[in-house]
């Protein structure tokens, strides 16, 4: 039983010389925290966009909880997924609560159940005193935490986070990572996480897939991958071993 299954995925954007994804295949079991890692231009964003149904693949098969990502299942998959984009996808002029009420309403949630849920998440993310402050007044870490809450309101089965800790301070990063671990353990929610912080990925993820130039280059549990490469001290060394030292655009 997989949360995500990708088989022989191909995608070339119109006008692009090179494919963004070329024969990519990987899968993650349900209920784990999975890391999708790769250098810039590896194809992570394209893969996530195809998983969410935002971009149509040229060919290949994508399944989310055994549902094929196609027109027939697109809406059902959207209900299962909560996505935390890399950008702060909130309205800066609205307060955190107003943002969360709006996104909750879009998911069909309303009234006291929604307000209780918002209050609970604000508390868990240490934002209970700032819920009625406009988001543009927030620090980077507070924005990131609110950005994550907006993806959790509808109780997704699969949480996709695109660099959720980019640009945040140590305390906020620690809180976010601890929440993700707890959320995964307590709710059994599957998590797909992308990051360039490999130390973070090593400590958070049960399993990682490393992709480069649109292909899978490596997959496994971080600890096992490190063990398989005695010359590597950590996941970052393994990553560099496979993707090289050349700077990517």
């Amino acid at each position, binding site marked *: 039983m997989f949360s995500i299954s990708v088989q022989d995925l191909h995608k070339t954007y119109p006008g692009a010389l090179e494919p963004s994804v070329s024969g990519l295949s990987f899968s993650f079991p349900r209920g784990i925290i999975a890391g999708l890692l790769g250098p810039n231009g590896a194809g992570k964003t394209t893969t996530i966009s195809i998983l*969410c149904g*935002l971009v149509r693949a040229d060919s290949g098969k994508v399944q989310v909880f055994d549902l094929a990502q196609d027109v027939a299942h697109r809406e059902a998959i959207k*209900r299962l997924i909560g*996505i935390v984009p890399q950008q702060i*996808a909130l309205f800066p002029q609205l307060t955190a609560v107003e943002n969360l009420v*709006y996104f909750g309403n*879009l998911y*069909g949630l309303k009234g006291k159940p929604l307000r209780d849920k918002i209050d609970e998440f604000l508390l868990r993310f240490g934002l209970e005193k700032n819920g009625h402050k*406009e988001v543009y007044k927030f620090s980077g870490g507070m924005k990131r935490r609110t950005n994550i809450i907006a993806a959790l309101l509808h109780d997704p089965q699969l949480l996709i986070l695109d660099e959720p800790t980019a640009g945040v301070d140590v305390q906020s990063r620690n809180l976010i990572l601890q929440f993700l671990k707890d959320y995964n353990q307590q709710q059994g929610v599957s998590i797909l996480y992308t990051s360039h912080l490999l130390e973070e990925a090593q400590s958070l993820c049960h399993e990682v897939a490393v992709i480069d130039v649109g292909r899978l280059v490596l997959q496994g549990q971080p600890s096992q991958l490190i063990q398989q490469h005695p010359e590597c001290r950590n996941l970052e060394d393994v990553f560099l071993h496979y993707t090289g030292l050349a700077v990517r655009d």
Partner: protein
Amino acid sequence: MLRLLATIRKEWLLLIRDRGGLALLFLMPLVLITVMALIEDAPFRDYQELKFDVLTVDNDHGRLARYIKEGLEHSGQFNLVDTLAGQAVTEAAAKKLVNEGDYKICIVIPRGATAAIVSNANRIVNDLSKRMGLPAVAPVKSRNDSLDVTIYFDPAAKKAFKSSIHQALDNFLTQVETDLLLERIKQQLRSREAEAADTFAIQLKAVGLREQATGPTKQIDIIYNSVQHNVPAWSIFAMFFIVIPIAGNMIREREDGSLLRIKLIPGSYLAMLTGKMLFFMSICVVQFYLMILVGIYLLPLLHLPRLSLGHTYLPAFVVALCIGLAATAYGILVGTVFKTPNQALSFGAISIVILSAIGGIWVPLEVMPPTMQFIGHLTPLNWGLEAINDIYLRNGGLQQVWANAAKLMALCGVMLFIAARVEKKRMG
């Protein structure tokens, strides 16, 4: 419905916290309408409402000069000036003053003008008397002089102004000549039969002129003045300026990822787009009626005419809705097509200014060259203005405005279709 209401609430909260946007939507048009109505008040006034100083050089000192002077004064348009610094105005001095622009017009009545008219009337009476077998006794001049009343205009005077003065003076001359002729005929007949002459009357005008309303009501006193033009015109301009907040809002949502988040939420994006459209359309309608209130209550305080609204209110509401929808759809199209706020805002603002200039917002279409009039009739701002004028000036109802309202709705549909295609292509 929840998604739609949530979107309306969200847009409302965003708007009330955007003071610059609020000023752009409500304060800017208020100032614009007031300023434009004041600036264009004089050019819009009929010549009948304006008074000009007219230099008169009377070399005749007869009946013709008196008639012309009385006629000009009676019209209420002219202040006659026949002396300057206690001296009678001479033709040379008058010419100089008019040429320098100190006066717009000078009328020179030549010496012997009345005598020439009297002589001409006598000649006609004598001729008629002869043909009727009566004695021709009225004195006539031996020479048939050709005299002209001379008019000097300020070189900068407009053609329409010259034309109206020409026409007025021509009427006075005809009037004097006719009066004298009739008087001479009466005198001739009175000399033959005094009793009959006592009851003798000639009604010269068998057919008169009467102004009637063309609309369903009898109201004919709505004058197309500065307020009547500028209030609806600049209200429509302001409504279309909603392209700025809508396009900016859409691009910001796309850039900060909130649009992505919205699109990843199950359910139709159409409900959210409809909520956005309904909200901004409502803002447009509020703008419209706020500006109408300015025309009714504020502008009269500045000694401008009060805005007249016609006799039915529903058609204006329908037209305001249609303009609001077209303006909102234009904002959505601009916000979809352009990638950066700078591009969208510059294009949006400049395109509205151009469309308004072409569409008769700045100056009525009627004063433009025929080609520009043709182009102007193709712009949505003109459709809106025409529909409002049909209601406010021509007392029209839904029947009169449906064609322009339908054009606005059709344009709204086309723009939304194009926006949907562009967005679909982008997502692909």
